[in-house]
């Protein structure tokens, strides 16, 4: 008889094997290319850098290919649970706009009531430092209570010190009130979830008593800028397939992305008390990217952590410009690199350790590409001159065989790994008639091409920001906990220039160096160098509102009901509340 997880291990092994084959294939091709004019130490270094980079790219591509082979399924749920367990919805806030955040809670409450569920509790867990914003929070909480008839169901507390940031905020809730609830739905300030989805999550938690955490796949909504809409399209069209691949390989050690996920409070309490790591930030101190660690700790205690990608009705908002994206990424970069301290933590499941490695790789992979490009520019300077007369006393020159075809093959292979998954996802959507919500098959396909072009322009800039983040962390600079900017995110040209002039300068130096030292590489480097030189314009242009018919997503043509509810509440709340309303609440 087969062991229950034999298939899972086989799938993981296959994915790792395919990635290794791609990486080693790239290594071999580059070694052939390097050997043609005599193998130098720099050739071996470049081949190793290509191996690691290709391995990482192939891992992403394999994940997509696995995702393409299956469709999301509802997990089996023997006798239908009622979904009446004691559940609380937690919204941690930190200097956010309370009007927008609290209106989300009101919308989710209305959505739950529409499903007949008026018994779920809500808590605003405020870590807001600004007294003015805190006063506004309390003012609006009164209105929230009045409008939802939420006394005894809606709670608000503000911590005097935000120890441990978001993880500490949740921990404070659990230690103070966790015993009052079976499940807690953890949100971000920009999260929105349909009532039906929340209730389905409660039922799934009830159906599987070993399920410690249930993660949904939140879709980005309400993007308005070119950058935001490209991210939104990518999250809506491509991410579900990548997430499916991840879900296929996760087994019982799935991911936690920090929000839009439900936890079993008992499991969370007994497993996820995070220690303060020895030493100072960025590698020591409080754990920054706590979600991955909490998922690993739940799995360590044999709780199931699961991503149910079949669940819809889970939404979030994303950054509207590259600068905000880079700021968020700086925080994530520090958090993921800090996980290097936990790779050998006692008792973790091997897959949890592998997830940490993946997170670290996501941030250091650009360094390998930059190392490869730098080494390629420097190679002609350091190479020995070709000896056309290797045989003494032989009058005829010897021309080494050209291995350019191998280099071209390698380049095609690498571009294939980058482009193929997205092209295949578009083709599958067309073949399965799933492209209609994205504007139909031709529009979805054109959007895919546009997204590929857009991401190839923005990738070198994002790569530079990621590289800077990694160096900052390695040099011991703590990025802190900046507030997320939420809003239309439009950048002026001068703001864009201020945020990216160092990228322009780097792009100019790289392109000039290539022109001087490796002119044969200049056309290969221009796709990287030109976007870097034009970074301020790219930042400014991509932050402007998008009116393109491309990159359509279902939520634009058919806004989610909970988002419509949120819009209506927000509009109503733009009018100041009546003093009587507050008096009513106090009574």
């Amino acid at each position, binding site marked *: 008889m087969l062991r229950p997880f034999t298939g899972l291990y086989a799938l993981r092994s296959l994915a790792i094997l395919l990635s290794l084959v791609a990486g080693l294939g790239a290594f071999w091709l580059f070694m052939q290319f390097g050997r043609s004019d005599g193998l130098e130490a720099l050739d071996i270094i470049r081949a190793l850098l290509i191996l690691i980079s290709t391995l990482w790219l192939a891992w992403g591509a394999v994940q997509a290919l696995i995702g393409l082979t299956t469709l999301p399924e509802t997990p089996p749920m023997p006798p239908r649970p009622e979904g009446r367990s004691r559940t609380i919805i937690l919204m941690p806030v930190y200097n*956010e*706009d309370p*009007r927008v955040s609290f209106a989300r809670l009101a919308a989710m409450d209305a959505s739950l009531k529409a499903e007949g569920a008026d018994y779920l509790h809500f*808590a605003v867990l405020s870590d807001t430092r*600004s007294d*003015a*914003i805190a*006063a*506004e929070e*309390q*003012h609006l*909480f*009164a209105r929230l*209570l009045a409008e939802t008839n939420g*006394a005894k169901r*809606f*709670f*608000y*507390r*503000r911590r005097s010190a935000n120890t441990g940031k978001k993880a500490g905020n949740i*921990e404070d*809730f*659990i*230690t*103070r*009130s*966790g*015993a*009052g*609830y079976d499940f807690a739905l953890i949100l971000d300030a920009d999260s929105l979830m349909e009532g039906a989805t929340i209730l389905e999550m409660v039922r799934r938690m009830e159906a599987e008593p070993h399920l410690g955490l249930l993660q949904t796949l939140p879709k980005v909504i309400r993007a308005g800028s070119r950058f935001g809409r490209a991210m939104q399209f990518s999250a809506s069209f491509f991410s579900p397939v990548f997430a499916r691949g991840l879900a296929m390989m996760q087994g019982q050690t799935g991911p936690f992305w920090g929000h839009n996920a439900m936890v079993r*409070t*008992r499991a969370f*309490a*007994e*497993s*996820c*008390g*995070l*220690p303060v*790591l*020895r030493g100072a930030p960025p590698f020591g101190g409080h754990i920054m990217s706590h979600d991955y*660690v909490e998922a690993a*700790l739940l799995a360590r205690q044999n709780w199931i952590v699961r991503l149910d990608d079949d669940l819809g009705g889970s939404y979030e908002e994303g950054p509207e410009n590259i600068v905000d994206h880079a700021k968020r990424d700086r925080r994530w970069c520090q958090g993921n690199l800090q996980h290097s*301290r*936990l790779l*050998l*933590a*006692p008792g973790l499941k091997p897959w949890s350790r592998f997830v940490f490695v993946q997170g670290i790789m996501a941030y250091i992979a650009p360094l390998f590409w930059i190392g490869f490009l730098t080494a390629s520019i420097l190679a002609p300077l350091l190479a020995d001159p070709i000896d056309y007369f290797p045989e003494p006393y032989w009058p005829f020159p010897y021309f080494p065989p050209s291995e350019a075809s191998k280099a071209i093959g390698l380049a095609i292979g690498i571009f294939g790994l980058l482009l193929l998954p997205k092209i295949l996802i578009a083709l599958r959507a067309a073949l399965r008639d799933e492209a209609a919500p994205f504007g139909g098959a031709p529009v979805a396909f054109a959007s895919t091409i546009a997204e590929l072009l857009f991401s190839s322009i923005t990738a070198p800039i994002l790569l530079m920001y990621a590289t800077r983040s990694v160096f900052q962390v390695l040099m011991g600079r703590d990025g802190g906990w900046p507030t997320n*900017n*939420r*809003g239309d995110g439009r950048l002026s040209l001068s703001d864009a220039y201020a945020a990216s002039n160092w990228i322009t300068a780097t792009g100019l130096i790289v392109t000039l160096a290539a022109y001087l030292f490796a002119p044969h590489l200049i056309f290969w480097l221009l796709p990287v160098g030109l976007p870097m030189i034009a970074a301020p314009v790219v930042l400014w242009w991509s932050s402007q509102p998008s009116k393109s018919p491309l990159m359509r997503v279902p939520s634009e043509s058919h806004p989610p009901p909970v988002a419509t509810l949120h819009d209506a509440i927000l509009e109503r709340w733009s009018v*100041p509340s009546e003093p009587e309303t*507050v008096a009513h*609440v*106090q009574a």
Partner: protein
Amino acid sequence: MTQPQATHLSFDISAFSLPDAPMAMPQQVLEHDQGLLRRLMALFTPDHTDAPSAGARM
């Protein structure tokens, strides 16, 4: 983000504080007491105890 509005409420927010239902959340162990090298050395000591530090040997 909208600017916070001045408020003159006498609203007592403590009346809506979280329910009192404490639950223990023990701190988890994520770091070994000894470094990797010391733990590897311990594999070769007779009773698998941690290898003594240079300071202890002195």
